[in-house]
Every structure is written in structure tokens, then in C-alpha cells.
């Protein structure tokens, strides 16, 4: 039953249920939170921050990401400039191994503990798996950092190979809630995505699984995404805000408003109290400097530093200075929340 139906306040319910008892909000409750007005936003963020501090602590996990294979993807994810099906200006390009190691070293120099290698593919072929084997080995030999990967949909054999390489976390986002997914991607199904996520979880690798918001979904569908992520219980949820890319089907959408984005962060924290919740793509555009700070005080406990796959991010020194100011230490290597 919803708080509204019982005449209670959803933030009071969330305080007792999530903060005191550690029970995540349900889909219906997340929707109630998403429907709260701007006059409740500061109270909501403060509650989400309390939840984060109680169940995750003050440390922030810092990660860098790099595109090993950019562009030319056969899939049609409508938010993505790397699809070969759209008139996006992004061209196909591969990163070589020395540059990959250099990028990992630069990332580690910021204090980051995670370095995620990403490829724009439906799933990896033999050439990409060979590049990964060589690249992961080279990074592990040269840099003290955890290696993660995001290579699309996997077979069980590929999952096993990545485990064997020493990849400790695998990213595969749901992208959107099940009911909105067909409006976002038509070249594969939500269930195909779930299959890869489940194989990754069973393999022992950590699962990083999140999505994008601001793609034209309803608040109901946004709450649905939070609930479906909660059911999957990933180790980490990266939260992306749509950065409308020229030439893509979503290229003409307006970026999400800051208030909406912050409410979404807090709602996801209340739905996922024990999960790492990471700022991913689009935060610079959607939140700016002030919003970035508010989100870190509203449930976020992980960041991507530096540039993204095809777009640019903030100078890491700005993020690190902000974490220092907020007295949020960077999570150390092998430290667990």
C-alpha cells in the first residue's frame, strides 16, 4: 500500500522503512518519491544522504572509463552516438594497447580504483576478446587498478574467459525499465540483457548494471527501472542522464531538469540502499557544478572521473577537490563498502 493511500508522508515512510530498517522502497513507493514537489527536494536529498552514509559510509569509489572500440555498433540504442544505424558523426576507431595502458595509468594517478574498458558492439567477437586478453594483462602488469569491462551481450564461454583474464566487474545496463525498453532499443530484447547480467552475477564477477533517465520515459517507467534494478541486485548502479546526441533518435530531446535529476538520484538511493550508486554520463550537462555537489549529498557514492567514451567530462581535480571539501574520502583499492 502506498503512503498516499494510508494518509502518511512518503518521506516519513522512507525514513522508517529504508533508513531505520534497511528495507528498499517498492516500485510504487519510488513513484511517490519521484512525484514529490520541489519544496520537498532538500528534505528528500538529506534523507537519501543519511541512507547512503548508514549503509555505504562516506567513501566514494572513483573510476575511469575508456573506449577500446568506438562507433560502428550494429545495435540501435536510440540514445547512443556510436550506433552505425544513425547519422551520428562518430566514426569507428580502435584504441591500441599502449594507449590503453597509458589511459589506465592516468586514471590510477587520480586515486581511482576502477578502470573500465568499453567496446561499442552487440557482443564481443574473437578479435575483441583477444584484444581484451592482451589489454587486461598489460594493464595488470603495469598499473595497480581493478579492471572492469563492458562489451555487450556475452556467451557463457565469454563470461568464463573474462573471469580467467582477471576482469573483476562487468557492466551491462538495463538502459530502461522493461515497459519502455522497446522504445529505446529494437535490435535486442530486455530479456537478452537480463541473461548476460545473470551470467555475470553467477560467474563471481561483480555486476555493474544501471540505466539512463531523461529519455522520454514516464515517472512510472523510471520507478520501474529502479525496481527492476533492485530485483537484480547489482553491485553497482551507474546512473546516466541523457545527453542528447546529434544524429540519434533522441538527439532532439531536452536535457532533464536539475530538480528532476536530483529527485531521481535520491529515489534510486532509497530503492537501492546497499548498492554503489555512480554518477555516469550526462551529469555535467544536466547537473552542472552545483547539482553535482547536491547529488553527492543526496545518495551518490561513486563517480566517473575525466572523459567519457565519446564526450568530455570535468577535470578530475575539480571532482577530487569537491570530495575533499565534502569530507568524502576516495575509496581505497580492495576496500569494500
Amino acid at each position, binding site marked *: 500500500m502506498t503512503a498516499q493511500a494510508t494518509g502518511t508522508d512518503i518521506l516519513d515512510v522512507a525514513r522508517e522503512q529504508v533508513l531505520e530498517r534497511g528495507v528498499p522502497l517498492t516500485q510504487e513507493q519510488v513513484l511517490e518519491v519521484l512525484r514529490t514537489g520541489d519544496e520537498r527536494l532538500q528534505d528528500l536529498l538529506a534523507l537519501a544522504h543519511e541512507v547512503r552514509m548508514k549503509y555505504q559510509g562516506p567513501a566514494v569509489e572513483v573510476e575511469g572509463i575508456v573506449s577500446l572500440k568506438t562507433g560502428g555498433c550494429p545495435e540501435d540504442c536510440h540514445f547512443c552516438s556510436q550506433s552505425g544505424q544513425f547519422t551520428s558523426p562518430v566514426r569507428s576507431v580502435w584504441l591500441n594497447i599502449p594507449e590503453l595502458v597509458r589511459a589506465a595509468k*592516468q586514471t590510477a594517478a587520480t586515486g581511482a580504483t576502477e578502470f573500465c574498458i568499453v567496446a561499442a558492439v552487440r557482443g564481443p567477437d574473437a578479435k575483441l576478446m583477444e584484444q581484451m586478453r592482451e589489454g587486461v594483462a598489460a594493464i595488470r602488469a603495469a598499473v595497480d587498478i581493478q579492471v572492469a569491462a563492458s562489451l555487450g551481450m556475452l556467451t557463457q564461454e565469454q563470461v568464463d574467459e573474462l573471469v580467467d583474464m582477471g576482469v573483476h566487474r562487468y557492466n551491462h545496463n538495463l538502459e530502461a525499465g522493461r515497459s519502455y525498453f522497446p522504445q529505446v532499443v529494437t535490435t535486442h530484447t530486455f530479456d537478452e540483457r537480463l541473461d548476460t547480467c545473470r551470467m555475470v552475477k553467477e560467474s563471481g564477477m561483480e555486476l555493474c548494471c544501471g540505466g539512463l533517465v531523461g529519455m522520454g520515459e514516464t515517472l512510472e517507467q523510471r520507478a520501474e527501472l529502479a525496481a527492476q534494478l533492485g530485483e537484480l541486485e547489482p553491485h553497482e548502479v551507474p546512473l546516466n542522464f541523457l545527453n542528447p546526441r546529434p544524429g540519434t533518435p533522441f538527439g532532439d530531446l531536452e536535457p532533464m531538469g536539475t530538480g528532476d535529476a536530483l529527485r531521481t538520484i535520491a529515489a534510486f538511493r532509497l530503492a537501492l540502499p546497499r548498492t554503489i550508486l555512480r554518477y555516469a554520463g550526462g551529469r555535467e550537462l544536466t547537473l552542472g557544478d552545483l547539482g553535482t555537489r547536491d547529488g553527492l549529498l543526496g545518495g551518490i557514492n561513486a563517480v566517473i572521473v575525466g*572523459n567519457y567514451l*565519446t*564526450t*568530455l567530462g570535468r577535470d578530475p581535480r575539480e571532482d577530487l577537490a569537491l570530495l575533499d571539501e565534502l569530507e568524502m574520502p576516495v575509496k581505497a583499492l580492495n576496500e569494500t563498502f
Partner: protein
Amino acid sequence: MVFADAGAHEPVARGDEPGTWCGQCGLALADGDHAACERRGALDPPRFCVHCRRRMKVQVTPAAWTATCVAHGSVERTTWG
């Protein structure tokens, strides 16, 4: 947004002369308002060669980007500090 068809144009060797084309949208700098392109440039590397408006191969890494035009070579920018 409409992008220029970079492949339809011959390379123009301009050395260090300022470019003719917008690196963001690929249209002529002399035509129209490119203020939005300029703003986008804070968070987007250029995608079109400013000399010949060919689409460039752009590699973004955590700390830099490199944009390569087959006719006019590469431009690299560090984005940290």
C-alpha cells in the same frame, strides 16, 4: 541536425590558416550561428575537420582526445589541467 557530407569534398591544404568549417556540425563557419556549437565544444571534441569538413576519427581517453583527418593530420588536446 543536418551534417555536412564530408566525403563529397576534396581536401584543401590550408596549413595553419583558420578553418572554414565548424568542427562540431560540419557546416560553413561563415553561414549561420555557431554559438551552440561553441558551447557544445566544452563537452564534445570536434567531429569534422575545420579545413575540409571530412568526418574525423576521434579517440577520447580519460585525460585527452585525438581527432584525425585523413588529409590534414591529427589534433590532440589534453583535458586535465
